[in-house]
């Protein structure tokens, strides 16, 4: 009897140790990855590296591809944030548990499940070929919008649902219409949650590559002329029709082609930028959410 209790206590002790080790191991891996890239990029990662043009003869910069990453991120968000927000309002405030809402939910799940390389194929056939938008920032952003839209809708819906129903009831009881209630009461209260979600999603889009290879293009730009403001000119970096290799696609391309002796330095530093970007987006989302939350609750109390 005593030995059985002893065994149970021993098993408990061992299990606790194993579970702690797993946690330390996994967090350790993440820490090691971050430290590895920070160390590997020392000496290369600089303001000059971030802004200058790529080069074949020496360690060039990532200016143009970094520009493209931000360009496509902003373009994607311009498409998906308004649509997702409005769609989220329907799902949270109007759609009941009916069949229609079910079909929409199923569609969201299906789109989210599609591998990004398949979304890339779709973008190639649809935006690049059928719409003749070629390999461009626009085609890339639309491909990213395909799986980002259901995500944004879902996210807005959840943020809106998290608003206590008492706030709605109070507004309706005062004689406000449903839309007035949504616009003036529910939406403002949901904004912190939505903004946090947008920033977190941005981090995801920033690092995406598979869907962009066949849509935004693979050609490495040698130099961008930012004085060219003609939006219809594919040579202008401001144009949605310019071929737009992003930083993530650039890393993949470097490894598959090999641009010379500096590949490792460039890819390490570019990876470091992506990892730092993930950290910044995460911390930014938390910080921003907290600040907005304080303002919203301060205003309503």
């Amino acid at each position, binding site marked *: 009897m005593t030995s059985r209790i002893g065994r149970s206590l021993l098993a408990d002790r061992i299990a606790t140790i194993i579970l702690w080790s*797993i946690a330390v191991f*996994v967090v350790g891996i*993440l820490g090691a990855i971050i430290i590895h890239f920070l160390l590997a990029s020392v000496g290369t990662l600089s303001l000059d590296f971030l802004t200058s043009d790529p080069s074949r003869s020496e360690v060039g910069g990532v200016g143009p591809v970094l520009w493209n990453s931000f360009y496509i991120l902003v373009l994607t968000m311009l498409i998906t944030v308004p649509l997702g927000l409005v769609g989220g309002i329907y799902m949270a405030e109007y759609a009941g548990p009916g069949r229609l809402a079910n079909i929409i939910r199923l569609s969201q799940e299906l789109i989210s499940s599609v591998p990004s390389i398949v979304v890339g194929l779709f973008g190639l056939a649809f935006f690049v070929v059928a719409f003749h938008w070629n390999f461009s920032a626009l085609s890339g952003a639309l491909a990213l919008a395909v799986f980002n839209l259901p995500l944004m809708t879902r996210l807005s819906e959840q943020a809106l649902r998290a608003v206590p129903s008492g706030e709605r009831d109070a507004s309706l009881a005062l004689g406000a219409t449903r*839309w007035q209630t949504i616009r003036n009461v529910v939406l403002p209260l949901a904004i912190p949650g939505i903004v946090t979600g947008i920033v977190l999603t941005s981090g995801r889009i920033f690092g995406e590559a598979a869907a962009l290879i066949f849509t935004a293009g693979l050609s490495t730009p040698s130099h961008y002329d930012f004085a060219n403001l003609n939006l219809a000119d594919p040579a202008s970096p401001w144009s949605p029709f310019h071929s737009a290799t992003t930083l993530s696609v650039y*890393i993949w391309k470097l*490894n598959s082609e090999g641009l010379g002796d500096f590949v490792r330095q460039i*890819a390490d530093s570019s990876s470091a930028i992506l990892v730092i970007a993930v950290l910044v987006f995460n911390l930014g989302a938390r910080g921003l959410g907290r600040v907005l939350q304080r303002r919203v609750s301060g205003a309503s109390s």
Partner: protein
Amino acid sequence: MTSFAGNSPAQVRRGLSWAERIDLPRRLTFAAAAIVVLLVAILLGFITWNGIQVFLHSHIPLENLLSTRWEPLADPQAFGILPFVVGTAGVTVLAALIATPLSVGLAIFMAEIAPDWARRIVQPAMEVFVGIPSVVWGWLGITILVPFLRQNLGWAGFKFGFSLFAGALVLAMMILPTVTTIAYDTIKAVPAELRGGSLALGTTRWQTIRHVVLPAALTGLVTAVVLGMMRAAGEALAVQMVIGNRPLMPTGLADPMTTLTSQITLDMGNTVTGEPWNEALWLMGLVLLAISFAFVSLVRWLTRGREIGA
């Protein structure tokens, strides 16, 4: 005694206004929400149509496509997609086998054992973990993992390098945060009374976890792993970078091999629309789509009658 028989006082007073009857906000927001349905239809249509061209247009017989030989440049050409299907299945299952114990262990740790300060570290760490881009994992695989495997794992002239195993390891890392987060939510959702009841009987914490909490959370844990496998099967670049890209049937873990996603990634740019090679790649895209829809059905079946947390 006034009887308004079911009408609200406001309606009796003025009837429904024009704006209320049309309810523009409802219609407009519905249109935005319903775009996704249209998107699914178009995507499904396009991928399916392009995916069946290999039969309709190039007339490649099914036996050829279901063979194990992939030789698009040989004469006669062979477009057997079986090596890719087997490769995808191999890395997916292996990645799940590696990731599951770590993820479930970590989820148990966060839900049952971790003091507050530890949870405050692990939880944000998972959020950062899930955000690390695919290409960064691939690059780590090439520069750290593959050289490490080459030096430390191998015996009797049998070398691990770019291999199925390397691909599965990278994928395991990529799905780990996804599986952990969903598993954690599931374990958290197990009612506290169950734990209390068990502990009150004098069990240890581990006995309670093993015999009460885990069985209660089982379906959710399976769902978490299935969602992880769905992500693993569709992942392209990281796998392509470390797996070796040899379109042959794998015979062991150390073999360089390839997957559906890797081959599409590599070959698509080398082909021209309308040629059999290109159309065979589209068929592989269609197969990938079918795989992910099958995963969605599986998850729906597992979570039937409950709110899906993913």
